[in-house]
């Protein structure tokens, strides 16, 4: 067992883990962060996407020990402390960018990452930006719309929503 310490959604957790523990299993099973889900074995589906030190990664393809000392943000940590939704969350709701919702946490986390890098993506750029996230329900069109709507809202506001959440 190895001792790991990480800040998840603004709270520091220290635990003993087996080195083979995947970050996503640590989040779900040790920390109760079940908002982040597992959809595949091969890093294809992106359902488990979280931010590791501010960058989107697939938490099923990161060992918990690798996140030692890191800041992790999950879908549960992006809304403001008062519950105000992150603009990307809000846009997914408004544009009907989800149906069953299983891919949604990963999709939202990947989209936030994309918008940090490209604040005004075209339709094609959004599609390529979320190519690592599979959705079986929506056909993606409303997800693309949602990301573009969120882009508009984010570029219009000075706040940096990623860090106004529980991480602050």
């Amino acid at each position: 067992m190895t001792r790991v310490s990480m800040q998840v959604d603004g709270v520091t957790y220290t635990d003993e883990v087996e080195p083979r523990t995947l970050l996503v299993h640590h989040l779900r099973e040790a920390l109760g962060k079940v908002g982040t889900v597992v959809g595949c074995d091969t890093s294809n589906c992106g359902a488990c996407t979280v931010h590791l030190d501010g960058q989107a990664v697939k938490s099923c393809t990161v060992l918990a020990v690798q996140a030692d000392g890191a800041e992790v943000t999950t879908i549960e940590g992006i809304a403001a402390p008062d519950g105000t939704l992150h603009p990307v969350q809000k846009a997914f709701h408004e544009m009907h960018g989800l149906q069953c919702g299983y891919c949604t946490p990963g999709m939202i986390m990947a989209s936030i990452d994309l918008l940090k890098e490209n604040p005004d993506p075209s339709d094609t750029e959004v599609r390529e930006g979320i190519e690592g996230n599979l959705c079986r329900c929506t056909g993606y069109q409303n997800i693309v719309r949602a990301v573009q709507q969120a882009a508009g809202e984010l570029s219009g506001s000075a706040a940096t929503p990623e860090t106004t959440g529980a991480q602050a």
Partner: protein
Amino acid sequence: MIPAPFEYVRPTTVEEAVQAVAEGGEDVKIMAGGQSLIPVMRLRLAAPETIVDLGRVAEMRGVRDEGDALVIGAMTTHAEVITDPLIAQHAKLVAEATETVADRQTRRRGTFGGALAHADPAGDLPAVALALDAELVVAGPGGRRTVPASEFFVDYLTTALEEGEVLVEIRVPKLAGDWGVRYEKFNRVAQAWSIVAVAAAVRRENGHIAEARIGLTNMGPTPLRASATEAALSGAAAAPDAVASAARSAAEGTSPSSDLNAQADYREHLVQVLTRRAVTAAAGL
């Protein structure tokens, strides 16, 4: 799935890494970004006893300018490669090919060196390293040595790395003169591996193609150079017909496999089309 249990070592210097590998027992595995390794371990297709994680070896990360070459640390992530100004300036082909690797999240973790050392014939970067005559700097118990890319890729998932050796950095010679580059990748869905891809760098001089370097992805158990096409292009007119004619020999000397996405003869056809397209684009035609 969950990987089988293993010992985990996290060195912070190359020296420590080499030592950790030496002490790691029979079945030690070096982990760079882990983006291919962890899935294979989750499927229990690999079950190493010890993992040596290079993620904290700071000296293996980053890009520096050494005059006639760039030196890219093996642990430089794909995302860093894509946004690195030195690479954009002197090794654009590396950046262009890296942009096609997997997806955004995978590129955040996956590394340049990891992709080369894994030597997946469907991986995009080995052919680029080969086309650019990169040199791979390897550290082992006996010190460091440099392996040219042409000798590094030995077989399917097999490289010239000896037991106990770690790939530390990659020297990519700068392209001097009027070079154009193109990575032409062919796959069925966006995040998939290449069915076939062609990395081309072309130097033009006075309306002619002075030199072409062409690396082929997934046309055999290792990346290959399209030597016959390169020879045919050397001194050829920078014209579509000449390029098309030269591209017809792109499959010479290749031995592609057959799988779900393509049978060998189709790959042999594809590589000709993609070579023509890559060279045409690289030559600015």
